């Protein structure tokens, strides 16, 4: 018999059907809204869809007015986005997803197989990420079971480093080493399980880093709960205590894994391209660029539907994992005492970074010398030279300011929005967060670029639209636990209002872990910006910004590893510093 003990209900409970109505309406609204937004893309961007569709079919050549007219009549283009979306939804109800404007074949034939493939890749990657994160947390679990845990442990640092690895760099590296170098695995294609290994690693390892950091924090928080000491002094076996701790900590992470799963479905376009996997990300991207609206609408609606389903499942999973503890006064989230050692390590790494950045700032990042193209590291160029002969160290230093500054700014913004939404939003419903998370980042980017034009500000908007989501989900998860705590009830009966509870009880509990989470995601903001640069969103074409440099030079990984290594290492070290920095040092 479980009772949810959150904010008290304020009215008589309505019959079950009526109670579900707002939720169903919300879900439908989300689906219709995204379909409408996608359907309006040609109008938003001002690009004639007839033209982009023609170009997708014939790249060279300049279509004339007659050809464009013929295409328009053939495609039966809707006169305005609302009519088009209504038509689309009407057909959807009969199970017809429409016909692609570019290929003239039914959308179902391309989108559904691609969805299946993406589900396989994303699902396996999420599973691998979770398992890997768990393995990284095992030492911390065992130490916590012994009562010796201080701070996040090694798992946090390794997690931070891994999480900052850009997926596309990892993908290219894996192909170079395992597929081409050692010939162990196929380079491309997707016809059997052996094709699954490398893409899953490329997607799963960075994700494992983030999850490991979250797990480390959750373990540290759980290690301070009173039952651990009781169990230890009662002589319970170390592994049993560790397992119980693990199960308790994993509850926080499961909603994040599900977020990751859905997010990867539509957003793995770059990794899919490297491995030639016909997944939904690539299809959505190609269709969005060609403005093949039926395909994009179908893909996006499917993704959003899955996102809502899975998001609801995440909340449910959290509840199932924690069971009755979430309902009674089961929790007292304790403070985690940080160790001195991680702080010192963070400082050391940060110093190394700063020294390198300052050294780079003193040099000229723009001096081209094509004769020095991809030159190896030497006295003249300590980090080597890039494809245009520019000094990599100099570009590293100058790029740092933009990258780190932007990334920190975006992470801070994401933190504020995420915490606000997580605390103030409706607790146990899948909502806007799941919709936005399911939308492929490139589609969001294209819409933002169409509406706001290219540039750095638009890029920041596009990244901010989704960056807050994992933090909001994390906040929601922790807040659910905090609201189940004894002192929360005590505050309520003491007459505390919503804001008081938020400020004095929820925020101090929820704050530090979510801030740590935000720190882990700092490098991601830079990479997200880089991922949108091909749309014209982001720092300028010649900017030495790290994410951009990575995106442009990954193809040179085997010939001149230093060109890729410098910005990649910069991001990784930034991730390590962020992971080790602790906002709530030992009292």
């Amino acid at each position, binding site marked *: 018999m479980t009772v949810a003990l959150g904010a008290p209900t304020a009215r008589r409970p309505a019959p079950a059907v009526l109670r579900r109505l707002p939720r169903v309406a919300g879900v439908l609204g989300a689906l219709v809204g995204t379909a409408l937004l996608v359907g309006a893309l040609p109008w938003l961007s001002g690009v004639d869809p007839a033209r982009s569709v023609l170009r997708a079919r014939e790249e060279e050549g300049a279509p004339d007015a007659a050809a464009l007219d013929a295409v328009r009549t053939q495609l039966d283009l809707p006169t305005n986005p609302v009519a088009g979306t209504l038509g689309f939804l009407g057909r959807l109800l009969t199970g017809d997803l429409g016909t692609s404007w570019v290929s003239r074949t039914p959308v179902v*034939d*391309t989108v559904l197989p691609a969805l299946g493939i993406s589900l396989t890749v994303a699902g396996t990657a999420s599973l691998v990420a979770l398992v890997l994160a768990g393995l990284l947390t095992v030492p911390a679990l065992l130490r916590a079971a012994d009562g010796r845990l201080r701070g996040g442990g090694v798992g946090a640092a390794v997690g931070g480093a891994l999480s900052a690895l850009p997926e596309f760099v990892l993908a290219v590296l894996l192909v170079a080493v395992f597929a081409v170098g050692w010939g162990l695995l196929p380079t491309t294609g997707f016809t059997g399980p052996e094709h699954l290994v490398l893409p899953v690693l490329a997607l799963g390892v960075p994700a494992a880093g983030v999850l490991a950091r979250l797990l480390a924090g959750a373990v540290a928080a759980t290690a301070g709960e009173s039952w651990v000491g009781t169990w230890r002094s009662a002589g319970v076996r170390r592994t049993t205590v560790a397992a119980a701790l693990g199960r308790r900590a994993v509850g926080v992470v499961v909603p994040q894994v599900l977020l990751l799963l859905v997010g990867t479905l539509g957003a793995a376009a770059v990794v899919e391209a490297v491995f030639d996997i016909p997944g939904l990300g690539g299809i959505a991207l190609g269709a969005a660029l060609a403005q093949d609206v039926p395909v994009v609408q179908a893909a996006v609606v499917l993704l959003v539907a899955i996102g809502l389903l899975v998001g609801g499942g995440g909340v449910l999973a959290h509840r199932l994992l924690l069971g009755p503890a979430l309902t009674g006064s089961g929790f007292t989230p304790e403070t985690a005492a940080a160790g001195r050692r991680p702080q010192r390590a963070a400082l050391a790494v940060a110093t190394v970074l700063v020294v390198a950045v300052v050294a780079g700032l003193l040099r000229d990042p723009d001096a081209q010398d094509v004769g020095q193209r991809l030159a190896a590291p030497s006295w003249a160029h300590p980090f080597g030279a890039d494809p245009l002969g520019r000094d990599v160290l100099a570009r590293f230093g100058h790029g740092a300011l933009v990258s780190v500054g932007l990334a920190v700014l975006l992470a801070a913004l994401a933190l504020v929005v995420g915490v606000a939404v997580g605390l103030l939003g409706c607790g146990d419903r899948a909502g806007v967060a799941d919709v936005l998370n399911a939308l492929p980042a490139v589609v969001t980017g294209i819409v933002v670029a169409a509406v706001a034009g290219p540039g750095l500000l638009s890029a920041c908007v596009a990244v901010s639209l989704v960056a807050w989501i994992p933090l909001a989900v994390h906040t929601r998860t922790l807040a659910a636990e905090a609201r189940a705590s004894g002192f929360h009830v005590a505050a309520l009966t003491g007459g505390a209002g919503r804001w008081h509870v938020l400020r004095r009880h929820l925020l101090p509990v929820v704050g530090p872990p979510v801030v740590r989470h935000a720190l882990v995601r700092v490098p991601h903001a830079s990479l997200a910006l880089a991922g949108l640069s091909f*749309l014209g969103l982001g720092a300028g*074409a010649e900017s030495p910004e790290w994410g951009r440099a990575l995106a442009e030079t990954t193809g040179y990984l085997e010939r001149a590893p230093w060109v890729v290594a410098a910005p990649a290492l910069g991001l990784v070290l930034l991730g390590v510093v962020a992971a080790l920095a602790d906002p709530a040092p030992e009292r």
Partner: protein
Amino acid sequence: MNRRTALLAVPVLFAGGCFAGGGGTAESGSDRLRVALNFPPVAALSPWTDDALLLTRMGAAETLVTFDDSGAAEPQLAQSWEFTDDRTALVELRDDVVFHDGTPMDAEAVAGSLNAAAGADPGVRVLRDVGLVATAVDEDTVQLQAAQADPLLVQRLGAPSLVVLSPDAYADPTAPDPVGHGTGPYEITELQGAQSATLDAAADHWGGTPAADGVDVRFVDDADARTSSLRAGEVDVVQGVPIAALATLGDDQRVVTTALPRVTALQLNTAGGVFADAGLRAAAVAAVDAEPVVDGVFEGQADVAPGLLTDDTLGAAARSTPTLPTAADPAGASIRLATYDDRPELPEAAAVLAEQLRAAGFTVEVVVQTYATLEPDLLAGAFDAVLGSRLTLLDTGDPVGYLQTDYTCDGGYNLARLCDPDVDAAVTAAAALTDPRERRQAAADIEAQVLSTGAVVPVLHEQSRTGVTQGVQGVGEDPFERQVVTVATTAGR
């Protein structure tokens, strides 16, 4: 306990596995070619789209004529032809061609193919505004008639969209199905979506027995992925090896390069902004030095452009030196230079050119985006300079069409926004010429005219790079990139 296991089962369900349908793997002992082509079919290999290029590259379908290096027509499925008047031509067909489905190729089938293409909606690019009607005169002769005088009538037959397919291919008049209906050395037996295709040797091919037993084609969009599969030994022939990857190829691979009639050029916006001033255009032309781009960015895998058209194209025609006005002093004039990243070397080339322009005194901002998002701004003239890559000999193997599209007042792709009545008149006159040599000379003259306006700065001419494993012989070296797999291609295993 049940809840927990249920939770764990969910992700495993996902991992259960959906995989793309696989192409058959070659059995050991059979001599099959494994080929990776550089873009996937967008319309199930319909010849009325770019997929036609895939058909010809795979060796599945053929056109009536092909082009030599200069773009002149050469016989393929057609044996000979003659113009009876300025808009009619009689074409003699080979009599030993058999379609893959067994029917013989006769004039009726050819006329059917051509008329279907002429009637396609929207029209096939090469037949736009031509009004082509094909009729079978006798069993091996086809009469082609255009709506107005057309010197290029026969040249058009070399365009990939006019591949000849058997009558059964046109069962659906809006979407011809080439699977099993072509004439090439290899017959398509299966097409797996946009992933791969399987072809078997057509033993009755008119050019002789194909050298390989069959072809397994994969469509791989990403250039580095293609190259990796070549290096790993997963494919024998790879189209479009990027320059950056050349140095990573090992001893087991080599690259077949062919000069292309494709020019990378900097278009200057003559209609507005900084470059409306001819003197500043001249300054920009003087500032651009193609050598560092060719030697550095392209690592020698390109040729410095003597003009817009290649020497091969012009053949014997003489180039005249363009005369530009005196270069003015830029004095820090601010310009925006745009390019697209769909072709990997362009962004780097743009950066080099930007530095050169800065050295000459301009202030340059470089904009790089993917072509799809850039095109509306390009066509609207939002940039002062655009670095782009264009095919100078398109469907017809004739350069006048390119000059008409790119440099006349009404041209559909006039990024330089050049509107010079002299150029227009010269182009119209050149289009009416029937003698190929005269056309070439007229094209050379128009080129000099255009370059004299300073509207465009040719930088380099590109090359195609086909990566093959050692031992592969007979790969197509077609400057029009229409032939990769030929009847003579063998894996040499």
